[in-house]
């Protein structure tokens, strides 16, 4: 039986979280000393059998109360600020991260890399490169947690959530589901394998992959019939998708919405919820007809069109 006392630390997030944790530990030790040392001293000195001086003494109660109220408030504010700054850092991803899709379902984790490689309950990553996971759930709420990275994000059905981190040392690290999700919740776990960039490239190339993520999406775009309307030469008047991703889209109610992953998701599954200005609401809803994996592939294809310009409509 081994006796671990501290988890492995293998990401940039882990470093800042551990710093805060140690600061809190030190603060707790000081607080416990400030409370328990006087307490034990009083308990001993004023035990009923002792001869201590108990004559009542006029104490400046108000000043004492204000002191031990105000000082903890300021210390709390300091911890709040440190925690919030670190939280902001770990919730908002930097530009240009490696994008990997992750789907949680009862009771497994499925990943797909941009190059098209898929894996289940294993995730291969290059070291020292920031990674963003786009998380989706097929059924109930799950939570993706890598203790060695000190990161965790709930995976919520009906929406995408993201989680970013930057692994700092190669090796294997366990990940877990930390939102109870039913019978085999305990088995919904796996391993992150952090490799050197060369090894990662090697791993990507040796996978039996036919299509990249975007190519799989393009195939779906045709088989599902999307191209029938959204292609430039179509008879039906549908919004062009080239150059759409990341742009502001005018809606028929006069508002604008940023075309991000969530917008694309909602517009595919339930197009009537946000009608693009100038177009008739004729698109059928795809809710219930697409798995989360296919949806992510389709969106990867639409994202790949971001740099293209829409064809001139006649």
């Amino acid at each position: 039986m081994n006796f671990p006392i501290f988890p492995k630390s293998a990401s940039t997030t882990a470093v800042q979280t551990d710093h805060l944790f140690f600061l809190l530990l030190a603060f707790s030790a000081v607080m416990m000393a400030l409370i328990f040392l006087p307490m034990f001293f009083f308990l001993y000195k004023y035990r009923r059998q002792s001869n201590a001086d108990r004559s009542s003494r006029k104490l400046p109660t108000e000043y004492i109360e204000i002191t031990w109220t105000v000082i903890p408030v300021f210390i709390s504010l300091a911890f709040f600020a440190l925690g919030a700054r670190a939280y902001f850092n770990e919730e908002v991803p930097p530009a240009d991260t490696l994008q990997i899709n992750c789907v949680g379902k009862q009771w497994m984790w499925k990943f797909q890399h941009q190059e098209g490689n898929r894996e289940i309950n294993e995730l291969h990553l290059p070291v020292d490169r920031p990674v963003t996971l786009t998380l989706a759930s097929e059924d109930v709420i799950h939570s993706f947690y890598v203790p060695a990275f000190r990161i965790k994000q709930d995976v919520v059905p009906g929406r995408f959530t993201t989680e970013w981190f930057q692994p700092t040392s190669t090796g294997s690290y366990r990940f877990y589901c930390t939102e109870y999700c039913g019978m085999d919740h305990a088995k919904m776990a796996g391993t992150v394998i952090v490799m050197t960039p060369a090894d990662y490239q090697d791993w990507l190339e040796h996978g039996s992959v036919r299509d990249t993520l975007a190519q799989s999406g393009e195939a779906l775009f045709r088989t599902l019939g999307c191209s029938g309307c959204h292609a430039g030469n179509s008879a039906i008047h549908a919004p062009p998708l080239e150059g759409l991703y990341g742009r502001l889209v005018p809606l028929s109610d006069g508002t604008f919405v940023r075309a991000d992953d969530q917008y694309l998701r909602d517009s595919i599954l339930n197009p009537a919820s946000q009608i693009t200005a100038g177009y008739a609401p004729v698109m059928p809803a795809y809710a219930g007809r697409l798995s989360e994996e296919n949806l992510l592939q389709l969106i990867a294809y639409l994202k790949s069109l971001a740099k293209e310009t829409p064809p001139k409509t006649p």
Partner: protein
Amino acid sequence: MTAEPQNYLNGEYTIKSWLLTTDHKRIGLLYLLTILFFFVIAAFAAGLMRLELLTPQGDLVSSDTYNKLFTIHGVMMVWFFLIPSIPSVLGNFLVPLMIGARDVAFPRLNLLSWYLFVLGGFFTFHAVILGGVDTGWTFYTPYSSTYSNSHVTEMALGIFIAGFGSILTGLNFIITIQKMRAPGLTWFRLPLFIWSMFATSIILVLATPVLAITLLLMGVERIWGIGIFNPKLGGDPVLFQHLFWFYSHPAVYIMILPGMGVVSEIIPCFSRKQIFGYKFVAFSSVAIAVIGFLVWGHHMFVSSQSIYAGMAFSLLSFLVSIPSAIKVFNWTATLYRGSISFEAPMLYVLGFIGLFVVGGLTGLFLATLAVDVHVHGTYFVVAHFHYIMVGGMVTAFMAGIHFWWPKITGRLYPEKWAQFSAIILFIGFNLTFFPQFVLGYLGMPRRVHEYAPEFQVYNVLSTAGATILGVGYLLPLIYLLWSLKNGPRADQNPWQAAGLEWKTASPPPEHNFEETPVITEEAYAYPPLTSSQPTPEEPHG
């Protein structure tokens, strides 16, 4: 032996006289027996879980059974033991006595509260007999509303019904404390237990209806498939969490404020001193009740709620810790120049402070956003809330039961055994739950029946501790029951305590006081300790 004077226990002995009683003292005892029943079941479930967790493999029970065990443990401990523990047992017994009233404002409503509680308990227990529920006590959607194949609806119905008992109890206490105080008993002469019960009652009345609404909506989705929380039906699963924690975070304060009230009674008594900073302790209870309504989102830092909402909830969570800290400082300062003795209630209270300080400080870790991201959903959280709810509330409940036992039963228990039990409880508790902090930071998720082998050593320690803790609960059950028949009779005030409840017989007569007391002094008016000589040891059992 002379005949016992008439009291609330010996007036009538029939079962009917108990089941139809409107005497707040008898209703308190009915609650005590009922919650004891649920405590035994929930503790048994916990024992099985700890046994399963001795080894990393899932070998004692199946995953499905384990999931049902932690659901039973959570539901019964929270709603059928902790929430009614101090409020409904000690609160019912003590609130009228402490304010010099004959009973609560609405005695029949009080009895109805107990019947609602029992009816709710029946449905919950029946759901367990039918095969149990596997959602965890938090009932997160869409798992609970769509995916779980267990008796979710019936268990939710039980909690829903029991909630009305809570609301009526809260209402009764608020009105009783407002309207029925004895002449001269102004707000600032009230015992601090009454202040904490008042704050608790406000939470019971305002928060419990939200729980009822939440469970009802979940039931509607589960039974009729009306989309509220399940995104496949057009709902929002995170909405459930907002509603659930809007109740359940204030409920955490239902589970600790009354304990703080008990501590504020016992420390002055065993220090022979007025409490330090009365008004600050009193208003800190109110502050906890108010701010406690504004921190629910700290359960949801990784739920996909907005990060700016997360920051607001983190800030408010830090602020809610301040009134608790104020109480601890004032309790410590009360000891200064006191005349301190260490009978069992005082030992339990000192244990409470030790455990509550650890629970409170680890709460700051969880309020710190970036640290919470790591430890949320792990054993760190399990350890933290057990330090508050078991280390805090259950220890305070034990302190209260020991302190008022002579008043409730008219009997004294064997003091040495009680002191021994208090120490066993403290050791057992720490051995059970301290290793779980380490496990949590190492990354062991909660609600799993099998785990990675490197976590085993701490689980073994925890299970060993749970065994000792079990002894710490079993011993008082034995000697308290023994004392009912064999304990020496208690006089009116065996602790030489201040407070109205000690100015009437033990056990009190049915109408509490022979004549309505008139109050002329503030609470905890212990005689001044002027000399440096030890005060003479008071004789008691």
